[in-house]
């Protein structure tokens, strides 16, 4: 099956590093980008099996915008997106019920910061149908 590729798009280098370490230790190949534009380029270049995306980067909704763009491109719409957020309390968005709604929040899963290694790995595995 070969090594599974994951792209992390997040502007917080420390969060990126901690996730990268966890995912690499589980045998995934990880590439990272620190903003939406860079992320989109990287995803198109790498064509990963999974994208992990922060909601709020430079702008409040950058993560949403990139996700929608990916989902509207037939070449990339199959790639599952796992959204990372710490904004639940700021935006008041109910991610649990919104995730999976293609119109509104076109992602396959989400989790709240801080990253818990076990939770992260479980989510990634289930999205890659490895569990």
């Amino acid at each position, binding site marked *: 099956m070969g090594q599974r590729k994951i792209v992390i798009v997040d502007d917080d280098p*420390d*969060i990126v590093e901690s996730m990268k370490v966890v995912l690499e230790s589980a045998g995934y190949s990880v590439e990272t980008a620190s903003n939406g534009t860079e992320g989109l380029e990287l995803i198109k270049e790498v064509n990963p099996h999974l994208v992990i995306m922060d909601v709020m980067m430079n702008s409040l909704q950058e993560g949403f915008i990139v996700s929608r763009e990916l989902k509207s491109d037939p070449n990339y719409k199959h790639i599952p997106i796992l959204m990372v957020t*710490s904004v639940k*309390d*700021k935006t008041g968005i109910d991610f649990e019920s919104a995730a999976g709604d293609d119109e509104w929040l076109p992602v396959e899963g989400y989790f709240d*910061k*801080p*990253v*818990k*290694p076990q939770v992260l790995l479980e989510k990634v595995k289930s999205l890659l149908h490895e569990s």
Partner: protein
Amino acid sequence: MESVLQSKSLIQRAYWLVHLRWVAVAVLVCATFLASETLKVSLAVSALYTVAAAVAVYNFVLFDLLRYLVERAEHPSLRMLSRIITFQIGADFVILTVILHYSGGIENPFFFSFIFHVVIASTILSTLQSYLAATFAVAVFGTLTLLESFGVLAHYELVPFVSVDFFANRFYVLGTLFVFSATLYLVVYMTTSIMKQLRRQQEGFELVNLQLKQKDYYKNEYILRLTHDIKGHLAAIDGCLNVVREKIVGPLNDKQMDLIERGHNRAVKCLAFVNALLKLTRMKLTGRLDMELFSLKRSIFNAFAAAENGAKAKNLEYAYEMDTAVDTVYGESTLIEETITNMLLNSVKYTPAGGIVKLSVKDAKDHILIQISDSGIGIPPDETEKIFEEFYRAANARKVERDGTGLGLSIAKQVVTRHHGKIWAQNNPEGGSTFSFTIPKDLQSHPEAGTVR
């Protein structure tokens, strides 16, 4: 908002006039009776009683009309209300003049009662309208006295109260009318000036109030931004610690593990605090809650289940009772459920092992009463209200848990207040404490449901 307030106060005034008129009718009947029976004054008794009856009927119709306008018509317009009040004042002048006509005209000292209405008019109506009202009073009463004086209208004498025919003395009549009108205009002038001053003051207060609200809003936005920033850092710190803690980057010796664990615990506590503060602040900043009809029953079950493990671990007697009538309520389901859960968790936390925690849900007349009582550490006397203040923690609670956020009950209070309910705490005579809050049943019809008070 301002026009709603204004129309509210105009409605109050309109009712006030109606109520005063009942008193006036009673006074008229009593005065007529006393004057004619006891003082043997020669009054047109039957005419006066007829007038009293007519005014009573008029007042009843007016009362009904007002009630209809307030209850049926959604929002009686300001113009409509001010017209009704103007009409009432004008009609009262005519009524008073008719009464005076049957009780001696200018010879009856009660003619100065016009002043009352002029004062009332000056507090409610505009300056111009007030002067017009005074002019109308002078005109009606002046016409009456002059007509009586010239013999066009009959004059009812007040024997033996007034034995000289003042009414026929033109000089006296004109002089009295002059003083009368001068007095009325002066009253209008004084009252409207005082009212202007009062209104200006009130506007000042309202402005300050608005500025305070604005400042409070900015303060909350500031807290929100700051807290959110801190949360970002904390999340990164804890994320990194977690990677080490779970030995993903290699094994740790016991001392290393212990220190990492300590760091992680503090980060978790700080995150809990930051999350609570975010929640409270966000609630304060949001204008409305998303309210809907939801099953309170289910929320109670969920909340009860959420604290059950903790209660079992401490071997507590843990039970609930719920009135069968309790079903759905109108409100924000997640917030209500969380509030009950948190209060249960609180009781479990502060009740020593082997104690009791009980949840009771009662259907009271117009509200649902939710109570959580325990056999725990109780609340220091005098602090049963303070514990709902932000960041306040009772000394005995601090001993049980050093690093509580001090925000749990503030959030609960915010939630309950948003639902227009009440929340309070008291100590039980047999030890422990009871936390109670209410959810009104008629919330759905409440126009300001979910908004900040």
